[in-house]
């Protein structure tokens, strides 16, 4: 079963009216006191925030910049034509047999 347009508009208007005339909540003086109690328990500014909270608040702001840096680095590595397997093979051929892999990064 479906609504006809006239019935639905009538229903819509009834719902809107009911929503707008909803009873507003009231609070006691105790509520106000409990809010202030909670505020006081937090202490005065500046709050001591943990590094994790700071990262949560501000870290995401650097996300676009981090994405750009990652994209640029990826492009740069692709452009360099860097292939670790080739480098290793080249190193093994060029170096004497005693040479170890530790020497490769210069350690």
């Amino acid at each position, binding site marked *: *079963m*479906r*609504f006809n347009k006239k*019935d*639905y508009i*009538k*229903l819509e208007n*009834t*719902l*809107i*009216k*009911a*929503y*707008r*005339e*909803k*009873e*507003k*909540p*009231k*609070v006691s*003086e105790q*509520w*106000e*006191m*409990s*809010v*202030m109690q*909670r*505020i*006081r328990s*937090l*202490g*005065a*500014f*500046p*709050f001591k925030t943990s590094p994790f909270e700071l990262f949560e608040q501000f870290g995401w702001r650097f996300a676009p910049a981090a994405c750009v840096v990652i994209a640029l680095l990826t492009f740069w590595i692709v452009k360099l034509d860097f292939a670790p397997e080739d480098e290793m093979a080249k190193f093994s051929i060029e170096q004497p047999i005693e040479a170890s892999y530790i020497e490769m990064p210069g350690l």
Partner: protein
Amino acid sequence: MPTHTTTVDDHDIVRRVIAGDINAFGFLVQKYQGHILSVVGNHIPYSQAEEVAHDVFVKAYQSLLTFKFKGGFKQWLSAIAVRTCYDFWRKEYRSREIPMSSCSEEDRVCLDRVMASQSNQITSEKNLQKEARELLGRALDRLSPEDRMALEMVYLEGLSGKEAAGLLGWSVANVKIRLFRSRKKLRKILAGFLED
């Protein structure tokens, strides 16, 4: 508790609170509690509105350093209230048990009662409104938090798309799209209540 003084500038109070005068925040709680309860009461069930309004002021205090002194404090606080209500529905949505598609016998009875009351002159206005609110609540519970907020703020409360977007922190286009979709969904949900 500090007394209500309308002449005291909100910005000055905020500066005092930031400077360490916690009690000055009491002026703001007292001044805006009515407004915040009204905003929260529009979106949250009556029984939970008090708790959510409490959270709004706590969040406002915690975020006071982000308050830009260019705009009004009331607008800034309203945005926190609306976003707290949105968070409330997001939490509810994650933990809810009602399947989106199902509609119970009670939903059908509820809609039937409203439809009958509309055409019945004997039913009092108060009863009709009570039944209509129950029906609306049942339908809204089936919407996503995003759709629900857009629908309530623009369609039911009568705010403009721009005002709703400002309070929710969304783009105007996003609000308009959400509103269009949610109105269609609401109609579908209510029609679903009619089906056998």
